[in-house]
């Protein structure tokens, strides 16, 4: 019943711009969702702790790393809760030793961002290996993909224009016409699929996401 009412309300709010409806909609989307997230975050942190404690207890493969995960969690939580976000808003815990600062913003800038950038940079290597796999012309589709990619790559560099003058325009055409047509076809399906899934949930036909049968 809650899903039915809130689902219909969400759909109604899409077509009613009146501030009364909008404010309720925004409250539901922002405030209520934020409160639920805060509560579920507690469960999430509980899950991390439980998961790593089990690994330590069972001496699972690479279990010492679980100690690092738990210690990192505790230290960053302590700094975040009691050490303040940055020097401009200090907490009750000192977060610097001489010129070395380890407040939350410093941890984020000097640990999280470089680590995330490193993972992101791996994408370049994975792209190369995926491209190698995709471009092996095993069948007609892969061959077409190879040809299209070759034209696009060659069309994007000055050498392409030097070799065949209309190549960049042809590459642009591939990108804007057949590629966009295929993308739009997929988008239509996605749009209708989204509405159908929402309807099934609102009407209570689909209950799998609640843990019930379909």
């Amino acid at each position, binding site marked *: 019943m809650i899903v039915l009412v809130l689902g219909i309300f969400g759909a109604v709010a899409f077509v009613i*711009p009146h501030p009364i409806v909008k404010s309720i909609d925004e409250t539901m989307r922002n405030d209520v969702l934020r409160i639920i997230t805060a509560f579920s975050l507690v469960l999430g942190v509980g899950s991390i702790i439980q998961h790593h404690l089990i690994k330590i207890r069972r001496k699972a493969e690479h279990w010492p790393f679980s100690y690092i995960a738990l210690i990192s969690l505790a230290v960053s939580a302590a700094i975040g809760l009691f050490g303040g976000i940055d020097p401009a808003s200090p907490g009750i815990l000192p977060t610097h030793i001489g010129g070395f600062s380890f407040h939350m913003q410093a941890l984020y800038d000097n640990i999280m961002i470089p680590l995330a950038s490193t993972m992101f940079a791996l994408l370049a290597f994975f792209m190369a290996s995926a491209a190698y796999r995709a471009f092996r012309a095993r069948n007609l589709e892969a061959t077409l993909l190879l040809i299209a990619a070759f034209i696009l790559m060659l069309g994007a560099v000055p050498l392409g224009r030097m070799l065949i003058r209309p190549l960049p325009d042809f590459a642009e055409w591939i990108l804007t016409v057949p590629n966009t047509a295929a993308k739009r076809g997929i988008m239509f399906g996605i749009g209708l699929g989204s509405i159908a899934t929402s309807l099934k949930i609102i009407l209570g036909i689909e209950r799998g996401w609640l843990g019930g049968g379909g």
Partner: protein
Amino acid sequence: MTLSLSLIFLLSSLSPPTDVIARDKPNDSGGAILLTWTRSSDTTVVSYRVLRQTEGKATWDTVGLAGRLANRFTDDEVQDGIRYRYQILTVSETETAESAPSEYTVCSPQWFNFDRMPAVIGTIIFTCLIVFFIGRAKRNIKLFIRRIAGLDAVEEALGRATEMGRGILYVPGLSSIDDVATIASMNILGEVAKKTAKFGTPLIVPLRDPIVYTVAREVVKESYTAAGRADAFNQDMVFYVTDQQFAFAAAVDGIMVREKPATNFFIGMFWAESLILAETGATTGAIQIAGTDAVSQLPFFITACDYTLIGEELYAASAYLSREPLLLGAIKGQDYSKLLILVLIVVSTILALTANLPVQNIF
């Protein structure tokens, strides 16, 4: 002084804009007035300045500037229920010219956004089609659904994992629960969990969003209960990792390399980490089934995974796997809606093309 001002006025050759109309901006939540005018015919116009006067006050305030080609302006710094009127000032390099003031107008919020009427009509037609086909499914009329290779492979992938004595990794995307792709993924997770419960295959579900974590845990728990294997459910099967995108990708990569699951499911919403996950999974030799509605990530999954559910197949998956007649009816409705859209596109294209052809001369 008066004489000099009169002389300036007489010498001014700049023509002001005409037909200045102020009206409540339609289809909005109030607090906005829409102004339209007929542009000055003068070629020396540089811009237009919009002036506003509140009823009962003598002063005119400048509320905005518009380019020389503009003929409309929205004043969204007004209050509902207060009457305002406007003047447009034509500005050239050397002089200005004022239009006649508009009528007083007042803005108010609307109860219906008529701009969204086509979406409403489309949704109503779509809903009717779905309800019609659900009705047919209820009457046990057999509905044909085309084969989806990626979903047919689920059973095979689970069987392989069971034979090899290895686990199954299920990543339901990185988005939150308000994303339809995540909900669709939860539906598929339910079906996959029923099968892993039946075969006794270990299931690993790492999660990025805390709300999705709580939902996924309940889905898996209920599926194990529905399969009659509530005792086999382990709290540690479904666990929260982190909400940081690349930290999550690193954690899942680590799980794939260490645990070497026989099958990896990447189903839901993914961003840049899609290829990092799928390529790492490919190096471990696992069967990989991916599904996403993120169009930009589809090529990566198609390249690196054995099977990929493209766009709408993701939403159809739970019906396909469960073979629930009511859910299949909804898919049928979806298919007919697509057919309707296709027909509309073809007809519109023909009309658009013939509109520019001299066919009128034939008759």
